[in-house]
C-alpha cells in the first residue's frame, strides 16, 4: 500500500492534540478539541523528533564544522543516519524501513537542519525523492531489490538537471536509445546532490526525443554501471558537506527492467514527486533558520553593552520579534502543507508557498543573526556564518523562487475561473 495513502488513516487517528504541555499538565486528561492547532503531534511524531534532536546534537554536531571546511560528508555520520532508521522513514517495515509517515520525515528533516542543513538535505532527498518514487512506482521486484538497500546502507541520487536545462527541466538532452531489451544512454547531468556517496541513481533521459517531454523516462542506474562517470564535486558557497557533482553517461547500457514506471511518463513522475520534495526543502530551510536563531538569541541575552543586555534594546527586540514571527509563519506553512499532503488533499500551491517562504525566511534570519552577533557573527569560530552561506541555495534548488511564484500564480488564476 502506498505510504502516502496509508498515512491518511494513520495520521487522522494519530493527530492527537498535545495542545500545550501546560494545558496537558493542568488537566490530567489530554484535551482534544475538534480542530487541533497545527503544532500538534502524535506521540510517535513527538518521540521521533526528540530522538532525532538528541541524536543530531550528539552524533552530528561535533562534525559539522570540519565537514563544511573540507567539503566532505563524514562516513560515520552517514552510517549513523542509516542506523537510526532516518534514511527509510516512510519505507514499510516489510522492506526493512521505519514504516512511519510523511510528516515524520518532515520533522526529521527540520531537526537535522537545525544542526546541519547538508546532512538534512541528504536525508531529505533520500526520503522525499528517491524512496517515494520507488515506493509509488516500483514493480514488486524493483521494490524488493532497492527499498531494503535504501533503508539500510545505500544512498540515492536524483538526476534531472543538466548544464543547459535547470528550470526548463523538460528540455533535457540526455538520450536513451532502445536496442532490443536494453537502452543505451548518452548525455550528462549537473548539480547532482549526494552523487559522491550514492549507490543508486534515478536518471531522467529522453527515450523518444521526437515526442518532446513526453519521451522522458526514469531509469534506475546502479553506481557501478559501465559508462557512468561521476565528475569532480563543485566547490560551493554553502551546503558544502553535501556533494554536488556532474555526471556523464557514455554509451551506458541499462536494461529495460530498470525503467521506473512507464516509458515517456518520467516528466509526470518528476513533477509529482517534486511537489512533495518542495515541502521537504521548506522543512530544511525552516530548521536552518531556527537553528541559527537558537544559537543567536542566547548570545544577545548574555552580551552586555552600555550597561544592559543587547537583547534589552528596543531596536533589537523589535527585530528579534519580527524574525520570530516569520519563523512561526514559515513553520505553519510547512506543517500545513505536509498535513494537507498526508490527508490526500490538494497541496501543490501550499507546498510552493511553504518552500518559497521558508527560503526567504532563512535568508532573512541568517542575515539578521550575523548582525545581532556583531563581530563574532562574522567569524568562522561561531556557527552563524555557516547558516548564512547555507541558506542561499533554498531560493534556487528544487524549483527556483521565480518558478514557485509562477506556479502559484497559475493556480491562483485557475481559482478565479469560476
Amino acid at each position, binding site marked *: 500500500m502506498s505510504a502516502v495513502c496509508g498515512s491518511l488513516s494513520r495520521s487522522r487517528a494519530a493527530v492527537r492534540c498535545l495542545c500545550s*504541555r501546560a494545558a496537558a499538565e493542568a488537566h*490530567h486528561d489530554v484535551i482534544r478539541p475538534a480542530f487541533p492547532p497545527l503544532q500538534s503531534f502524535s506521540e*510517535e511524531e513527538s518521540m521521533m523528533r526528540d530522538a532525532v534532536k538528541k541524536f543530531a546534537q550528539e552524533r552530528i554536531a561535533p562534525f559539522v564544522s570540519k565537514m563544511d571546511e573540507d567539503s566532505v560528508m563524514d562516513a560515520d555520520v552517514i552510517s549513523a543516519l542509516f542506523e*537510526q532508521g532516518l534514511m527509510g522513514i516512510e519505507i514499510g517495515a516489510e522492506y526493512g524501513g521505519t514504516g512511519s509517515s510523511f510528516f515524520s520525515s518532515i520533522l526529521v528533516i527540520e531537526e537535522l537542519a537545525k544542526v546541519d542543513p547538508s546532512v538534512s538535505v541528504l536525508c531529505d532527498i533520500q526520503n522525499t525523492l528517491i524512496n517515494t518514487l520507488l515506493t509509488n512506482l516500483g514493480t514488486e521486484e524493483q521494490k524488493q531489490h532497492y527499498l531494503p538497500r535504501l533503508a539500510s546502507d545505500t544512498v540515492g541520487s536524483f538526476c534531472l538537471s543538466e548544464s543547459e536545462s535547470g528550470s526548463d527541466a523538460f528540455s533535457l538532452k540526455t538520450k536513451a536509445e532502445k536496442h532490443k531489451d536494453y537502452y543505451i544512454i548518452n548525455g550528462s547531468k549537473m548539480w547532482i546532490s549526494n552523487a559522491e556517496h550514492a549507490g543508486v541513481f534515478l536518471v531522467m533521459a529522453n527515450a523518444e526525443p521526437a515526442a518532446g517531454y513526453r519521451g522522458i523516462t526514469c531509469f534506475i542506474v546502479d553506481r557501478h554501471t559501465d559508462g557512468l562517470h561521476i565528475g569532480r564535486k563543485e566547490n560551493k558557497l554553502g551546503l558544502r558537506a553535501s556533494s554536488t557533482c556532474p555526471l556523464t553517461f557514455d554509451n551506458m547500457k541499462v536494461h529495460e527492467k530498470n525503467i521506473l514506471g512507464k516509458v515517456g511518463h518520467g516528466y509526470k513522475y518528476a513533477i509529482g514527486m517534486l511537489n512533495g520534495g518542495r515541502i521537504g526543502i521548506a522543512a530544511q530551510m525552516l530548521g536552518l533558520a531556527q537553528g541559527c536563531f537558537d544559537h543567536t538569541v542566547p548570545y544577545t541575552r548574555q552580551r552586555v553593552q552600555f550597561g544592559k543586555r543587547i537583547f534589552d534594546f528596543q531596536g533589537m527586540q523589535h527585530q528579534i520579534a519580527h524574525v520570530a514571527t516569520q519563523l512561526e509563519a514559515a513553520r505553519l506553512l510547512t506543517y500545513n502543507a505536509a498535513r494537507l499532503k498526508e490527508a490526500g488533499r490538494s497541496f501543490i500551491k501550499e507546498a510552493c508557498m511553504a518552500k518559497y517562504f521558508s527560503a526567504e525566511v532563512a535568508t532573512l534570519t541568517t542575515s539578521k543573526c550575523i548582525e545581532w552577533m556583531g563581530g563574532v557573527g562574522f567569524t568562522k569560530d561561531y556557527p552563524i556564518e555557516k547558516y548564512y552561506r547555507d541558506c542561499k541555495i533554498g531560493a534556487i534548488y528544487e524549483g527556483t523562487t521565480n518558478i514557485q511564484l509562477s506556479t502559484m500564480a497559475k493556480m491562483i488564476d485557475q481559482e478565479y475561473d469560476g
Partner: protein
Amino acid sequence: MSARVLVGVKRVIDYAVKIRVKPDRTGVVTDGVKHSMNPFCEIAVEEAVKLKEKKLVKEVVAVSCGPQQVQETIRTALAMGADRGIHVEVSGKDYETLGPLQVSKILAALAKKEQADLIILGKQAIDDDCNQTGQMTAALLDWPQRSPEDGTFASEVNIEADKLKVVREIDGGLETIKINLPAVVTADLRLNTPRYATLPNIMKAKKKKIANVKPADLGVDVSSRLEVLKVDEPPQRQAGVKVETVHDLVGKLKEAGRI
C-alpha cells in the same frame, strides 16, 4: 534463562532545564516544563536491554508511577528495547507527595506479582536526589542489593547460574562480586551509555503493551509520612573580597564573626 527483569523509570524535569521555585514556595515549577526520563533510569533500561540481548534474561518490564504523562517515559523505555510496560496510576496530591518509601512498596509488590528475578533501578533521581528507592525495595523484599558502579569506573553485570555477577573497578584492580538472585541492582552514571531509540524501534514500541494498575490493587498505601514545609532557591553566591595580608584576613574573619 527465563529471568524477568523489572526496570523502574521515573519521569523528571529534563536535566537541561533551569529550575525555578514556585512563588508559593511549595515546590518547583513543573507546568509547561520539559520532562524526560531520569538519566540514571536510562542507564538502568540500557543495562536490562543488554542483558536481554546477551540472552541472560527473557523479558524486560518497564514500570513507572505517576499520572497519564508517565506513559511517555514508559514508551521511551519500550523504544529502547523493553518488552512491555506497567503504569501505576498515581495523580494529584498523591503524586506530589510520592516518595521512595511508597515507590519501593509498589515495586516490591509488583516484583512479587510479576515474579521478577531482578530489579534494576537508577541509583537516584535528578529531582530529589534521594538514592533510597533501590535500598528500600531490597529491604522490603529481603533481597540483596548492589550498585555495580558505587562511584568507581564502569563495569559489567552478568548472570551466571543463578547468581548475579558484578565486576567493578576499584583502586587496587578489579573486584568481582557474586550475589544471589533475586536481587536489586542500582545503576550509576558510568555503567553504560544508553542507546538512542532508533526510529524503527519507536514505531515498534507503539505495538507493545502498557498495563494500567492502581496502588490500591497492589495493596499499597501511598499516603506520605513526610510533609514539605517550604522550598527555597539556594542562596545567591555573594561576591568575594580580596585582602592584601594575612593580618587583613584575620581582621575580616573576626569582623564576620567567624573567629
